[in-house]
């Protein structure tokens, strides 16, 4: 479980995050949603320690990450997997080498076991046939899947995904979302996912926090999201006509209780 306690972050006097409190539970896909520029990536970077908050605490199972020694941080980081907005694969390495990299650095397994583990992870994301390719030769969706395989190579406890399906078509997005959800449940990981894709929100939003201009405006699940009264959230969700119609139907059903 990861807890955030009143996180504040500013860049050059401009406040990007303001008093963010949240809890992310294990075995669940926790979503952070919000408009582009609302501060999702900055928040995630604060959680994983790529940025340090100006104020506030990030607790991993009750232990404050910010105050950990370098050695403790290092050990904790081997428990983390992250998928970046742009996949961030090592472009000097092949797909297999990318997935093997964390194992090369941190596992004590033999070479054969490392290869087997990497192949297992690649199989998990259905990419066994792309093993010898370079990241540059893959499509965006395939790169994201390699990034997932790399992130789960060391069997992490925590999985962070920054917009795992930005720039992907709806069908591929769905595949990626389901993959992340399945892995999360399978290994009882604590997953945190940044997204502004409403399909993901309605698909895997088991716990959602909504960020608007650096403030947490709402939290709940995909089931309460249509009933939310928060004005900013409604503006965000119902930006598209389609969802507005879905909401109308949803309300219509409510008003006419089944006979």
């Amino acid at each position: 479980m990861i807890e955030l306690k009143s996180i504040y972050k500013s860049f050059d006097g401009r406040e990007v995050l303001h008093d963010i409190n949240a809890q992310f539970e294990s075995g669940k896909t926790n979503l952070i949603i919000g408009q582009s520029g609302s501060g999702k990536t900055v928040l995630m970077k604060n959680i994983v320690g790529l940025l340090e908050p100006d104020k506030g605490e990030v607790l991993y199972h009750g232990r404050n990450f910010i105050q950990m020694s370098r050695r403790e941080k290092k050990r904790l980081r081997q428990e983390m997997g992250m998928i970046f907005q742009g996949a961030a694969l090592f472009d000097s390495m092949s797909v297999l080498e990318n997935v093997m990299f964390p194992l090369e650095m941190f596992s004590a397994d033999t070479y054969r076991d490392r290869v087997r583990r990497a192949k297992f992870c690649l199989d998990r994301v259905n990419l066994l046939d792309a093993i010898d390719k370079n990241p540059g030769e893959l499509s965006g969706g395939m790169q994201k899947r390699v990034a997932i395989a790399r992130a789960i190579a060391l069997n992490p406890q925590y999985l962070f995904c920054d917009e795992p399906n930005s720039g992907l078509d709806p069908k591929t997005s769905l595949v990626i979302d389901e993959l992340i959800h399945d892995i999360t449940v399978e290994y009882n990981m604590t997953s945190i996912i940044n997204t502004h894709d409403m399909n993901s929100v309605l698909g895997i939003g088991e716990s959602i926090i909504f960020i608007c201009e650096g403030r947490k405006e709402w939290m709940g699940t995909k089931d309460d999201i249509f009933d939310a009264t928060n004005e900013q959230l409604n503006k965000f969700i119902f930006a598209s006509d389609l969802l507005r119609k879905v909401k109308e139907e949803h309300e219509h059903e409510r008003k006419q209780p089944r006979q």
Partner: protein
Amino acid sequence: MQQINGMDILRPIAQTGKYFAMMGHVFSRPERMRVFLKQYVKEMVSLGTSSIGIVLLISVFIGAVIMMQMALNVTSPWMPRFAVGYTTREILLLEFSSSVMCLILAGKVGANIASEIGTMRVTQQIDALEIMGVNSAAYLVLPKVLGLMTMMPILVIFGIFAGIFGAFLTCWVSGIVIASNLEFGMQYQFDEWHVWASLIKSVFFAYIIASVSAFFGYNVEGGSAAVGKASTDSVVSCSVLILFADLVLTQLLMG
């Protein structure tokens, strides 16, 4: 007070501080010796071996030109017959093969390192390393620094030989100087220490090139334009630092 004519005067000091902070991370024990050695060998090949061609080419030409200049401008009937060979050798050994060669390589290798690491920064590959718990500075920079420091003296030796070959080549082709005179001059009062001094200097220059350009790449902020700027900046800084270090090292080694 911090800004004069729009220039941040404290910036160089802050940069220097950041540079030493980064180098503190770079020189730490590699996490995995096996991975480090693999990277080290890879960098020796990609930074060193791939530069042999350009080193040989440039050295042959410079050796030829220095010899020609000496033959045309220094000789006169009352100069001894070893003058051309002697001066050519001294210039090649003392300055050209190490300092000038490294200035040229600062352009090739420095820009290469800065843009490679800079691209890794902007595409978040460095963040990915950090998240895994890898000391990204050590993982990326140490093999490059040590690899180039290992290869540079070898490149210098290649350069010296190619320069001497170039000098003889013009001698045979154009006949400005008689080859045996050149040979005599090349061997006249040869001081082995000059070769060592050149090699020692080149190791320092290699350190400057690899570490400074890695520093610029590592600290890129922004996109591809910033990567481009980092590689130009690194070449400029490396060149200035090499010239400055040359001054100091020459005083220390020869004075």
